[in-house]
């Protein structure tokens, strides 16, 4: 690890430090610092700040940026109303890691692309302009949607997939104290020509909370497919809230993990489902739309048929139509 100065923030003011990197749970940042992929010269520890509450407001819930992944998953209100979020959190990492991982840090965790982690290899995300080894290399875990010819990394968070289903907004405090509310599609950038620019955050910005509006109507499911049944990142995951009434799908919200550089949501898929009677043919059509632009890179080609099967299975479970 490269040397750095350490400061424990006593106020939000201390955290808005252009020269410093924020550390919360540290479970991603320290891992990357040990590999010298991240080399900050100053860390500001925000863990003693007042961002640890889950508060209920009118038509929404506000989750402090420091709420741990385990506290969030176990919270009675989240379990009751936002089951997809509890489920996604519980499907991620391990008990130890979830105790340390925070809501803000989880959103900003970086890709698990093997070449991003291997500092002896070129990687446009780690070293802009150096090339992308994954394109023709080991890309089993990498993206099939939203990629560019510069980067095919996925965003690894399970939590963020559920938050995308739930139309979460991220509350960001700017250094001048102004508050910005961003959807996840606004927070996460697609790679394009600049895969190293991952989010809309600017130096000195502090994530203070995540807001969830009232949950959409319906049953909640988070289905994660991975190489072992626990303690592994998703190959493909689906977060879904779907409601049926009178034999028709009336409400649907779906997002996908393991497919793209951000939790992937395609409202066209939902529009295809809403108002229709659940059937195998309808689910196939939804999968066709989701995967219309999907592109495999060899090692991850399997994700295209796998996504189709997982989507159909989840929709079957939620509508009681098929399995």
């Amino acid at each position, binding site marked *: 690890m490269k040397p750095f100065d350490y400061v424990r923030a006593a106020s939000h003011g201390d955290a808005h430090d252009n020269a410093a990197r924020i550390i919360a749970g540290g479970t991603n940042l320290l891992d990357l610092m040990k590999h010298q992929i991240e080399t900050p010269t100053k860390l500001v*520890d925000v863990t003693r700040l007042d961002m640890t509450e889950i508060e209920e407001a009118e038509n929404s819930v506000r989750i402090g940026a420091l709420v741990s992944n385990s506290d969030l*998953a176990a919270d009675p209100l989240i379990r009751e109303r936002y089951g997809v979020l*509890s489920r996604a959190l519980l499907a991620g990492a391990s008990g130890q*890691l979830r105790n340390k991982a925070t809501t803000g840090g989880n959103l900003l965790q970086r890709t698990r692309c093997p070449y991003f982690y291997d500092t002896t290899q070129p990687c446009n995300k780690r070293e802009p302009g150096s090339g992308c080894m994954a394109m023709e290399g080991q890309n089993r875990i990498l993206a099939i949607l939203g990629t560019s010819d510069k980067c095919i990394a996925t965003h690894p968070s399970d939590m963020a997939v559920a938050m995308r289903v739930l139309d979460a907004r991220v509350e960001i405090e700017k250094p001048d104290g102004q508050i910005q509310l961003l959807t996840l599609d606004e927070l996460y950038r697609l790679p394009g020509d600049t895969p190293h620019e991952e989010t809309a955050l600017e130096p000195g910005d502090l994530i203070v909370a995540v807001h969830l509006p009232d949950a959409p109507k319906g049953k909640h499911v988070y289905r994660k497919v991975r190489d072992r049944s626990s303690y592994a990142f998703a190959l493909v995951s689906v977060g879904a809230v779907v409601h049926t009434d009178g034999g028709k799908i009336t409400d649907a919200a779906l997002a996908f993990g393991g497919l793209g550089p951000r939790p992937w949501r395609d409202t066209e898929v939902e529009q295809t489902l809403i108002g229709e009677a659940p059937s195998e043919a309808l689910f196939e059509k939804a999968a066709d739309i989701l995967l219309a632009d999907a592109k495999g890179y060899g090692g991850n080609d399997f994700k295209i048929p796998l996504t189709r099967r997982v989507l159909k299975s989840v929709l079957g479970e939620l509508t009681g139509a098929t399995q």
Partner: protein
Amino acid sequence: MPTLGSAMKITLNVNGEARSLDVDPRVALLDALRTHLDLTGSKKGCDHGQCGACTVLVNGRRINSCLTLAVMHEGDEITTIEGLGEPGSLSPLQKSFVKHDGYQCGYCTPGQIMSAKGMIAEFNMGWPSNVTDDLGTAPDFTEAEIKERMSGNLCRCSAYPGICHAIREAAPDEGTIEEAAE
């Protein structure tokens, strides 16, 4: 002006004792415990949060001590395997690991036991897991639940059946998170 990353004087509360040390900010809690405080029970397997050998309790909760900085833990209550029990006065979990052969080489064992201690407290608070059927009702302490909740602790010797038996039998004798934090 001190040089970048110069050492800091900190006090850590470990197993109920206040311990002062000078550490470079880069020092992980695990390394502070092992090399600065000579508490070598906590083990380093991977140093990257992947194996659980370094598991300790901080304020009663299990964490990976390799992925956190010592300087971040001033004011916290840290419990290591040495704080659970010593030869002659083993804790229920420690005794049960001995009785059920919950290890072979023993390298992962301190982490397994600390993780089990934290896990039982989580279970007692009614926390669900990925294999809990219904998020609305308290889960049963089944083998499936134990396996899922302990998946953050790897055992190279694959002593898993013994580990599982040991945890199952000791669980009723282990306390809640409040007790663990004391």
